[in-house]
């Protein structure tokens, strides 16, 4: 007589089921038909390596964050961006990613949208680690990437809101910022400087982003709130040509032309030029030929000085500028576009809507 304990009996059933499953899997791998009714019998496809369908496999660093691993992350994003220019299909292998931040997610989203618009195949795999995978899924990143829609909206609770558009829409910016402001201040408030800063960046995208492109320039916004630090971060991105590549097409009668020519002749780096522009030492600088243009970048610094935001960072071409920290660096890898990131907390200037 055999005495079988209850848990052990369940274990035998589980083992039998697992054996049947593994057998089916083995047969599927080697392409053997499974036992299905006559009408439904079909050959199960053998294992297919997804990498073979794509011209290029992009592998990010394990720490895929602009804030902590800036150079490698930008190098990775550039490697994908370069493939777009030569119409190569790309597989983004995120398996090994252990950390990813909101800024990198929105940049990946922007790149994928560009690929989709140009009908170049792009796909990817999820990170194996649960935290970055959850971040990717919860951001709604993969929900819709159809270029025929005028705007891309991914909403998930109060974590990340990402919008892509190609028109100037002040009202939409206010709508995006409103829940963030309520989270930070606990009530609806006017943050005029914050709003103006973002809309100024948006206007620059529409006016300057890519003078040679036939397509409208899309801008992207990602807004997130960190409960730990009680700080909100808004990242504005456009994948145009970047500030300095855009300025290279400046006309002789554009504002700031002679100043820029002198600086370039002296071998001044883009980082130093951006510092001078931010401090207002160059006067108005604009690619257009209209003398009253060229206030956008210095105005962003003014918003910082007035206390509407706590931190302002600008990444464009080979420049990484932490304007709030007075640091302007040259990066080893150039980024084809412009990122403006601001963060604010309830210590920043704002006004009651009831005033």
């Amino acid at each position: 007589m055999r005495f079988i304990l209850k848990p052990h009996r369940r274990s035998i059933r589980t083992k039998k089921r697992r054996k049947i499953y593994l057998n089916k899997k083995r047969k599927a791998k080697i392409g053997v038909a499974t036992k299905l009714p006559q009408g439904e019998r079909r050959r199960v496809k053998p294992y297919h390596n997804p990498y073979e369908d794509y011209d290029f496999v992009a592998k990010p660093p394990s720490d895929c964050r602009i804030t902590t691993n800036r150079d490698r992350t930008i190098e990775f994003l550039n490697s994908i961006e370069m493939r777009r220019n030569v119409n190569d299909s790309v597989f983004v292998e995120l398996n090994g990613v252990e950390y990813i931040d909101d800024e990198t997610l929105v940049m990946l989203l922007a790149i994928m949208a560009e690929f989709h618009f140009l009908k170049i195949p792009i796909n990817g795999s999820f990170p194996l680690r649960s935290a970055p995978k959850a971040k990717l899924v919860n951001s709604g990143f993969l929900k819709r990437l159809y270029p025929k829609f005028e705007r891309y909206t991914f909403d998930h609770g109060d974590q990340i809101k990402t919008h892509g558009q190609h028109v100037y829409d002040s009202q939409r910016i206010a709508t995006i910022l409103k829940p963030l402001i309520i989270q930070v201040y606990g009530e609806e408030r006017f943050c005029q400087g914050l709003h103006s800063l973002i809309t100024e960046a948006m206007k620059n995208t529409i006016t300057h982003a890519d003078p040679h492109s036939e397509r409208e320039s899309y801008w992207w916004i990602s807004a997130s709130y960190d409960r730990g630090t009680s700080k909100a971060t808004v990242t504005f991105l456009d994948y145009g040509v970047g500030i300095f590549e855009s300025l290279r097409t400046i006309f002789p009668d554009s504002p700031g032309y002679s100043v820029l020519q002198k600086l370039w002749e002296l071998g001044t780096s883009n980082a130093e030029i951006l510092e001078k522009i931010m401090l207002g030492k160059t006067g108005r600088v604009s690619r257009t030929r209209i003398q009253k243009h060229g206030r956008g970048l210095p105005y962003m610094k003014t918003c910082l000085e007035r206390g509407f935001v706590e931190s302002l960072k600008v990444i464009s071409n080979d420049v990484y500028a932490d304007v709030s920290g007075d640091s302007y660096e040259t990066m080893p890898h150039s980024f084809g576009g412009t990122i403006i990131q601001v963060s604010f907390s309830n210590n920043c200037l704002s006004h009651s809507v009831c005033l």
Partner: protein
Amino acid sequence: MEGIVISVAKDYSVYPGPRYRIQGKWSGEDFYHVMLRPKFLEALESKVNLIVKLDGVVGYGPSFLEESFGALAEEFGIASVMKTVKFESIMEPYLVEEINEYIKESSQRSTNEK
């Protein structure tokens, strides 16, 4: 203070937009032609002040302010504008100085071009 009063938020839009009409809604150019210029002319004719209340909007871009108030100075001259137009802002008092700067620059630019 007596005169003609316009509130940007209540009479025009809470969401001031870009510089030009072609760039989007509620632009400085549109505000100038639809509201600011007609009211300024009315104030000139009636010989009263034009009081512009700036509060209650989500935020002004420099482009909006320059294209609207700067255009006023370009067309009517700095003296006329500074005499007639008065600004009120409790939330953003620095805006008054900023707008005055745009008016002066626009007037100077207009003089240089002539």
